[in-house]
């Protein structure tokens, strides 16, 4: 899945960059959730009770 969106030029030639690919939004959200879960597991398993 591309990071960007492109539009075809009506004059031919290369596609033109028109913005970010918003289809990636769920993946960005999932990355945040995955980090939180991974950190929570790490804290529970590797450093239980340790502050910070």
């Amino acid at each position, binding site marked *: 899945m591309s990071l960007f969106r492109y539009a075809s030029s009506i004059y031919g030639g290369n596609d033109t960059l028109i913005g970010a690919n*918003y289809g990636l*939004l769920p993946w960005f959200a999932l990355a945040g959730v995955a980090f939180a879960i991974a950190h*929570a597991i790490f*804290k529970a398993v590797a450093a239980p009770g340790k*502050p910070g």
Partner: protein
Amino acid sequence: MTLASTPAGRVQRHKLVDRAYHWLMAAAVLILLVTAFLPILGLKFEWVGIHWVTGLVLTVLVLFHIIRACFFQNFWAMMIDGTDLKAPFAKPGKYDLAQKLYHLAISVLVLSVIATGLLMWRKVDTPFWQRDPYWLSTESWGLVYAVHGLVAMALVTMIIIHVYFALRPDEWHLTRSMLKGWITSKEYQDHHDPRRWQAKDEA
């Protein structure tokens, strides 16, 4: 004010003005993300006006914060120093290495989204000017939109991480300090190195 003289054993961590800045910025960013992404997710409404006005509010807030951090706060409290790198898990000053890295990342993202947003403002009719879609070339507009969109999505990731840490029980004292302004003297002693954060200087 020294630690011994603080009322009820409390140490001021965030002044009211800084807490107000934090929550106003949070509200502005959430409004910006909601007005940006809900239409993309299928909920159609007149979002452009709310979005650019809120973007302008965010810009003013961030300018205020930069001026305040540079001239009225201890600017270096948030900067990564040698001690952070030599002993990243030692007791920190006011902010630990992870918080400083987060602040650095969020600074880059927010400044990027503001810079590109201000450019995109040129494509919106406002009381100050009429839109001019030919102000930049098609390729340049594409780059501006791409950066703005990618950064906005990255902000979603960062906010989820931020809320996660704010809700962790072992970080509640920091969350409380962003609501009420203070941490207890015990929390100060347990979590901070007084040589690196002299609370009486920060209050």
